[in-house]
């Protein structure tokens, strides 16, 4: 099943995909364009992986890491499907990153790789934007690059783990204004999903609604105000986002 959190008629609802429409928790069936899409869950701790695809690491002139490069993200940065992401006026290189999001469902400590899939509730899509102009070499990647308000679209929905036969064999694509700009497969992850769950749970406790953003393949291209950026993962979802400019934020 594909489950979303949406706002409709002045209230927040759980909804499920219903043959191209959405069925709300109160039984109403509505069109997708009639709702405001929220993030499919309210994320607790969010981990993101740097350089977890060998081709992307090479693109950024890094050798592949020997230990997962993990950083954290906080609630301010997440927006749902069909949301707007702000591009500051002064930047020259802001790029999307299509990533498979793994949503934890059970308390996890010292999980063995062989058991790791039992701790997953479901999967979604994230677009982990980065603004490379702001990159500094202290506690990299710094929050100004990777944790900005509106900087991480997440959704449209969570697909139940049971409905995904092999999450390590999914095609990822990004289209900007309908042009294909990024293409890859989750099969190319350096550290696969069981390894990441085993690694993280070896030194900290994971809980329900913790999320792991598993990294992005190569294909990072600058985006412009007005661009429509669609990050899509086969069998998981198609996440649409639009880049907007600074001038709309009048209190600055």
């Amino acid at each position: 099943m594909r489950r979303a959190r949406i706002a409709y008629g002045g209230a927040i609802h759980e909804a499920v995909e219903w043959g191209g429409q959405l069925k709300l928790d109160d039984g109403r069936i509505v069109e997708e364009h009639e709702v405001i899409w929220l993030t499919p869950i309210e994320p607790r701790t969010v981990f993101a992986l740097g350089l977890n695809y060998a081709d992307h690491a090479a693109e950024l002139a890094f050798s592949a890491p020997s230990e997962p490069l993990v950083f954290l993200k906080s609630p301010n940065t997440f927006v749902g499907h069909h949301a707007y992401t702000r591009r500051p006026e002064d930047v020259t290189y802001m790029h999307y990153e299509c990533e498979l999001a793994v949503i934890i469902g059970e308390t996890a400590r010292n999980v063995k790789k062989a058991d790791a899939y039992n701790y997953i509730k479901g999967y979604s899509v994230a677009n982990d934007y980065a603004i490379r102009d702001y990159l500094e070499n202290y506690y990299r990647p710094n929050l100004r690059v990777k944790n900005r308000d509106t900087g991480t679209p997440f959704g449209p929905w969570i697909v139940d783990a049971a409905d995904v036969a092999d999450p390590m064999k999914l095609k990822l694509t990004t289209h900007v204004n309908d042009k294909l700009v990024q293409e890859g497969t989750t099969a190319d992850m350096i550290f696969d999903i069981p390894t990441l769950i085993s690694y993280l749970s070896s030194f900290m406790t994971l809980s329900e609604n913790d999320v792991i953003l598993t990294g992005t393949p190569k294909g990072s291209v600058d985006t412009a105000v007005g661009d429509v950026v669609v990050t899509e993962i086969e069998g998981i979802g198609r996440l649409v986002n639009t880049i907007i400019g600074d001038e709309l934020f009048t209190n600055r």
Partner: protein
Amino acid sequence: MKCVKSKIKVLGSQVLSSVDVNPVTNTVTLLEDEVSLDDLQIDNPITGTVFGTLLNYKGELESLGDAVYDQPYGSPPIAPVLYIKPANTYNRYGGSIPMPEGLTKLTIGAALGLVIGKQAIAVDEKNALTYVAGYTIVNDTSVPHDSVYRPAVQHRARDGFCSIGPWIINRHEVQNPDDLTIRVFINEKLQQENSTSNLIRPIARLLADVTEFMTLSPGDVLLVGVPENAPLAQIGDKIRIEIEGIGSLENFVVDGKETKWRDLL
């Protein structure tokens, strides 16, 4: 010192309670009595996300010396150096800090925590302090590590590595948060002393620079920094972080194998 207004969270309660406290004796005034924190079960008073700041004490940045011009850093920091303490690290007054297996020492980062009171988006330095509900004490524990380039998340994200409390002192009770003495005692012996007067970015400036790109929400906590020469602690140590006008936060370092209480949370 007179009693001051604060907010405190009783263990098991969902809400913060307004109480008068004495930051010098570290006691709570209940009716006419001064009640010791050791006789109360209190939780950490935090409801949001905890953000840490590094290299914001002059001495801490100076201790890097010319290394800031060398690789991997390349240049001194421009924007605030920030990190996130995830929810599994949250701990409380009196709580045990588990020593991870295979380690013998932990770094104790003593920080003043700004508890946010209203949605802070691109705030102006001039009125930044009005977004602060109050102040608390944070023991930002970490596994000792030297590099600040790309440290592994496991250094700061271990269970129990962020004790917060004992309370939130209302903003109006603190005349100048940019001039507070911070002391760390291990087993009652003074191990570190510094002052928020040594911050590179004073509090209002820090809030302005952080909220320029990242909204801080009510209940979030922003640590103003950890002073240089952070003391180390080992199993059995009692740690007390004292901040002038705010109070004292006490914790114990225990063997990680013995912290079964965490399994209930």
